[in-house]
C-alpha cells in the first residue's frame, strides 16, 4: 500500500494534517487567497453598463439587456451564497478545507466561464446560471471553508485570525473593480465591449488563485496547540470548552439571537453602502460633486475592509459580546448624530461618522465566527457559521428595500431631498437598539446541548444523559 493511500486521497483531511514543523502563519494567506477572489462579488456593478451595450456597442440597442434584468445576477449570487453556505457547511466539516476550497474554485471560476458563454451567445439565463447560481455556490463554500481552520490554528487569537481572512472579502472588490475596468479597456474593440473576454480571464485567474489557497491550506493535528500556550482557566462563561453539533446549534436561542444581531447590524450597514453616493450628494447639495461622492464610497470600502481586521482583533481582548455591544451602542449614537451633521453642513464629521459605522459593519462579519466558536465550540463552527450567514442573505434583501422604501415615501410626502435621509437614519438606529437587546440576551449555551466528545460523527449525546 503506497503512502498516498495510507494517508488518504489528495483532498483528504489526513493528507493536509500538518506535521510538527509547520508554521501556522502559512494558513492566513491561504484563506486570503480565497476571500480576495470571492470578494469580487461586491465589484460586479462595474459590468452593469457595458453589459447593457453588448449588441449596440456604442449605446444600447433593441434587444440589449436592461439594468433591472442585470440586477438579478448579483441578487441570485447572494441568495445562492447564503443557501450554499448553509447547506455545504456540514459537508465542509466532514471533508476538510482543501476539498471545499477546490470545490469553491471550480464553482466560482467555472461560473465566470459559463457566464462568459452566456455573454458570447447573448443568453441571459446562462449568465444567471453561470455567475448567479454556480458563482454564488462558489461564494458560499469559499466564504466559510477557511474560517474554522483558522480558528483551530489560532485558539489564542480567534478574532484576529478570522478577521484576516474576512478582511480579504472586503479587499477583493478593491482589486476586482480596477482590474475589471483595465481588462475591459484592453479587450474593447469596434465589435466587442470586452466583457466576455474579461470574464474568461477573471475565471481562469480566480480559479488558479483559489487552487493555490487550497493547496497551501493545512489543518492542525487533533492534539496540537501553540507552543507555550495553555487554554485559559475557565473564568469567562461566554467561552465554552464544549462542542455543540450543527443540527443542535440551530435549535438553541443563542443561535437565533446572534442571527438577528448579525442581520440587524448588516441591514443598517448595507442600507448605507447601497445609497452612499446619492446620500452624500443629496445631504450636501452643491458642495459634493459626483467624483467626490465616488471618493466617499471608496473611503467607506476602506473602512469596511480595515474594520474587519481591527474589530475582530479587538474582540480577542474585550470579548465578542462586548464588541457587538459596542457596535450597537456606538452605531445607534452615530446614526442619531449623522443627520445633524448633514443639516449643519459638517462634511468632515459626516464622513468620519460613516467611516466608523462602516468599520462596524465589516467588524460584525469578522467577529461572528469567533463569537460562534466561543458559544458552540470549534468542532463544527464552520458549518454553524454557514447557517448563520442566511442572516446576511436576509439583510441583503431587507436593507436596501427598507432604505429605498423610506426614501421614496418621504419624497412622495414632499420632504426635500436634503432631509429624506434623516428618518432613514433614525430607523437604522432603531434596528440597532433591537440588535443590542438581542446581543444582551445571549447567554452561555446550556449543557444539555453539549456533545459527547467521543461521539463526533453521530447525533450529539446530551452530556446530562451520560
Amino acid at each position: 500500500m503506497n503512502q498516498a493511500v495510507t494517508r488518504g486521497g489528495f483532498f483528504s483531511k489526513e493528507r493536509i494534517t500538518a506535521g510538527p514543523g509547520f508554521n501556522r502563519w502559512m494558513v492566513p494567506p491561504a484563506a486570503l487567497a480565497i476571500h480576495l477572489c470571492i470578494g469580487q462579488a461586491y465589484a460586479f456593478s462595474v459590468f452593469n453598463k457595458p453589459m447593457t451595450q453588448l449588441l449596440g456597442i456604442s449605446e444600447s440597442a433593441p434587444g440589449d439587456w436592461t439594468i433591472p434584468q442585470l440586477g438579478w445576477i448579483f441578487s441570485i449570487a447572494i441568495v445562492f451564497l447564503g443557501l450554499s453556505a448553509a447547506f455545504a457547511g456540514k459537508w465542509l466539516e466532514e471533508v476538510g478545507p482543501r476539498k471545499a476550497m477546490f470545490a469553491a474554485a471550480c464553482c466560482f471560476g467555472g461560473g465566470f466561464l459559463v457566464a462568459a458563454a452566456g455573454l458570447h451567445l447573448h443568453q441571459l439565463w446562462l449568465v444567471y446560471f453561470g455567475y448567479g447560481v454556480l458563482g454564488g455556490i462558489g461564494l458560499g463554500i469559499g466564504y466559510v471553508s477557511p474560517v474554522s481552520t483558522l480558528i483551530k490554528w489560532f485558539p489564542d487569537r480567534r478574532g484576529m485570525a478570522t478577521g484576516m481572512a474576512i478582511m480579504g472579502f472586503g479587499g477583493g472588490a478593491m482589486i476586482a473593480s480596477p482590474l475589471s475596468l483595465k481588462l475591459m479597456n484592453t479587450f474593447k474593440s469596434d465589435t466587442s465591449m470586452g466583457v466576455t473576454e474579461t470574464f474568461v480571464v477573471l475565471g481562469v485567474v480566480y480559479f488558479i488563485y483559489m487552487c493555490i489557497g487550497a493547496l497551501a491550506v493545512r489543518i492542525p493535528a487533533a492534539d496540537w496547540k501553540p507552543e507555550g500556550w495553555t487554554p485559559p482557566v475557565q473564568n469567562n462563561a461566554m467561552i465554552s470548552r464544549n462542542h455543540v453539533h450543527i443540527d443542535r446549534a440551530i435549535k438553541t436561542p443563542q443561535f437565533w439571537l446572534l442571527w438577528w444581531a448579525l442581520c440587524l447590524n448588516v441591514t443598517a450597514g448595507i442600507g448605507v453602502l447601497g445609497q452612499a453616493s446619492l446620500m452624500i450628494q443629496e445631504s450636501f447639495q452643491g458642495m459634493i460633486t459626483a467624483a467626490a461622492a465616488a471618493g466617499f464610497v471608496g473611503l467607506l470600502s476602506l473602512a469596511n475592509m480595515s474594520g474587519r481586521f481591527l474589530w475582530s482583533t479587538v474582540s480577542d481582548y474585550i470579548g465578542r459580546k462586548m464588541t457587538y455591544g459596542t457596535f450597537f451602542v456606538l452605531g445607534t449614537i452615530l446614526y442619531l448624530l449623522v443627520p445633524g451633521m448633514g443639516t449643519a453642513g459638517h462634511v468632515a464629521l459626516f464622513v468620519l461618522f460613516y467611516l466608523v459605522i462602516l468599520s462596524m459593519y465589516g467588524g460584525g462579519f469578522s467577529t461572528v465566527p469567533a463569537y460562534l466558536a466561543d458559544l458552540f465550540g470549534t468542532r463544527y463552527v464552520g458549518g454553524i457559521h454557514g447557517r448563520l450567514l442566511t442572516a446576511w442573505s436576509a439583510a441583503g434583501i431587507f436593507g436596501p428595500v427598507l432604505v429605498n422604501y423610506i426614501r421614496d415615501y418621504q419624497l412622495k410626502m414632499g420632504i426635500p431631498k436634503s432631509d429624506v435621509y434623516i428618518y432613514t437614519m433614525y430607523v437604522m438606529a432603531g434596528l440597532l437598539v433591537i440588535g443590542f437587546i438581542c446581543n444582551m440576551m445571549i447567554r452561555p449555551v446550556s449543557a444539555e446541548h453539549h456533545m459527547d466528545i467521543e461521539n463526533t460523527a453521530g447525533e450529539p449525546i446530551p452530556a446530562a444523559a451520560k
Partner: protein
Amino acid sequence: MQTPSQNKTPVGLVVAFWLLVGIPLIWGVSNTIITAAALFK
C-alpha cells in the same frame, strides 16, 4: 506565536505566500485611495 519547532517551514515560503496575497491587495487599496482623494479636492 513563533516557536523553534514551527520555524521548520522555510520563512521564505511564508513570505512568498504573504506577498502573493499582499501585492494585489496593496494595489487595490492604493487604487481606492487615489479614487477617495477626490473627496478632498
